[in-house]
């Protein structure tokens, strides 16, 4: 059953600079599943996403996507195979307009349901502001544009790194309310969040990282608050 997973991370060790950030981390995501990865600052969440996205390569272990190894594939290749990352801090291209940012996301020309029109339908505010330079958007709108940009590549797996970071709670709720629309197309999601309640509400399966190791995992509904805080803080 595990072999049927869309993404299979098998026992990876990865480094953040000279510092080992992940120790023997395994994780799997099925098609259409939303998986949350939670953990304190420095637990290795972002390094895990970067390893999957090909921005950094694990020193040990293996990453399989759709059964094929992507362990050492460069980031542009990983995207072309169908994994898109919404990077922490949004990181839109500041000298490009909103629409150009979306078009850059779509330049891989992977076939699929996501087009400019569909992204504008999902986030209507972006359509109104399509010709503005990306830095002219509010934080929440920038986050929508960053998600839209990633969707434009028609990924099979979308990695979301701290999409609630620095945003007002009402904006976070609005963005999370759109995620189910995204998943209807058979897309899988990995959500990295510090906002645990938000992550638990959205995800069906949760991994909790602590100091680079998987401290706890299980179906979101089956995990108790006590177990999570124990795994989160290591107390």
């Amino acid at each position, binding site marked *: 059953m595990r072999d049927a997973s869309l993404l299979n991370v098998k026992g990876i060790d990865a480094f953040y600079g000279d510092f080992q950030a992940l120790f023997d981390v395994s994780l799997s995501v099925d098609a259409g599943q939303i998986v949350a990865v939670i953990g304190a600052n420095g637990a290795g969440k972002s390094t895990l996403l970067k390893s999957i*996205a*090909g*921005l950094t390569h694990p020193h040990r272990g293996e990453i399989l996507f759709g059964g094929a190894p992507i362990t050492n594939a*460069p*980031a*542009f290749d990983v*995207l*072309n195979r169908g994994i*898109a*990352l919404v*990077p922490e801090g949004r*990181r839109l*291209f*500041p*000298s*490009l307009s909103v629409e*150009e940012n979306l*078009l*850059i*996301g779509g*330049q*891989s020309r992977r076939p699929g349901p996501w087009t400019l029109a569909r992204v504008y339908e999902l986030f209507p505010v972006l359509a109104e502001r399509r010709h503005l*330079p990306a*830095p002219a958007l509010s934080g929440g709108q920038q986050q929508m544009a960053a998600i839209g*940009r990633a969707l434009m*590549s028609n990924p099979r797996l979308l990695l979301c790194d701290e999409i609630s970071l620095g945003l007002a709670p009402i904006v976070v709720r609005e963005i999370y309310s759109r995620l189910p629309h995204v998943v209807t197309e058979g897309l899988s999601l990995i959500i990295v969040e510090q906002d645990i309640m938000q992550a638990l509400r959205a995800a069906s399966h949760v991994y909790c990282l602590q100091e680079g190791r998987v401290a706890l995992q299980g179906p979101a509904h089956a995990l108790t608050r006590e177990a999570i805080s124990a795994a989160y803080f290591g107390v």
Partner: protein
Amino acid sequence: MTAMQWFNVVLQGVLIGGLYAMFASGLSLIFGVMRLVNIAHGDLIVLAAYISLMVTQALGVDPLTSLLLVVPIMALIGYALQRGLLNRTLGEDLLPPLLVTFGLSIIIQNGLLELFTADSRRLQAGAIEIQTIQLTQSVWVGALPLIQFVVAVAVIAGLQALFYKTALGRAFRATSDDQSVAQLMGLDTRHVFAMAMALSLAIVAIAGVFLAIRTNFDPAIGPARLIFGFEAVIIGGLGSMWGTLAGGIILGISQAIGAQIDPGWQLLAGHIVFLAILAVRPQGLFPKVSG
């Protein structure tokens, strides 16, 4: 001197300014996309002139026709150079690419010296070299400088359109903004950089051929063209294509006026104006608006 003669001097300066803008736009393009300062840029201009010389001699065509071959040859050289060598030098540190292109400059100069000796050469464009067009009673312009200026404006306009209207230009700007996110969007930055270098050297090919029709050249004249290119880029302001054209024209006019005062002042006048603008407006006259 009469006002008409001064007008003529300025006009000649404007026309050669187009050539300087072509030197500069290739430099500015790759600095903008990959933060690489190409010290070998001037020598690549000279290399293009020699390639054109070989093509004209081998095929018996005139230099402007030889561009049909020289432009793709230089673009290919640019692509290969970037993929095979320069991409390996890029990183956080600006110094390695600077040193490697400095070395490349020396290799190209000595390679050309070995192959073609230190003799001065000239590309012969034939009858068009002496054709002139009369603007007013006392102002005449050569057909060739005029063609050269029109081509320069077309190159700048073309670059501008490519940057802001095409997918490749979008990829250039995105990669310039944030390399690692560009890769996350599926852009192979090694290829994007190589395309930028190919484009830069395609412009170098045009600039090199016009330079070689205009003046004598030998393997050692590259570094001075590099300086003119740099000065035009800095005067115009980094990141602005039309600014680069303006920078080239200002440099050309300064040199023409300097030469009019005293022939020995031609280059000096250009450098003085460059330094004055650098002192008063270090960001250049037309810097790119916002980040």
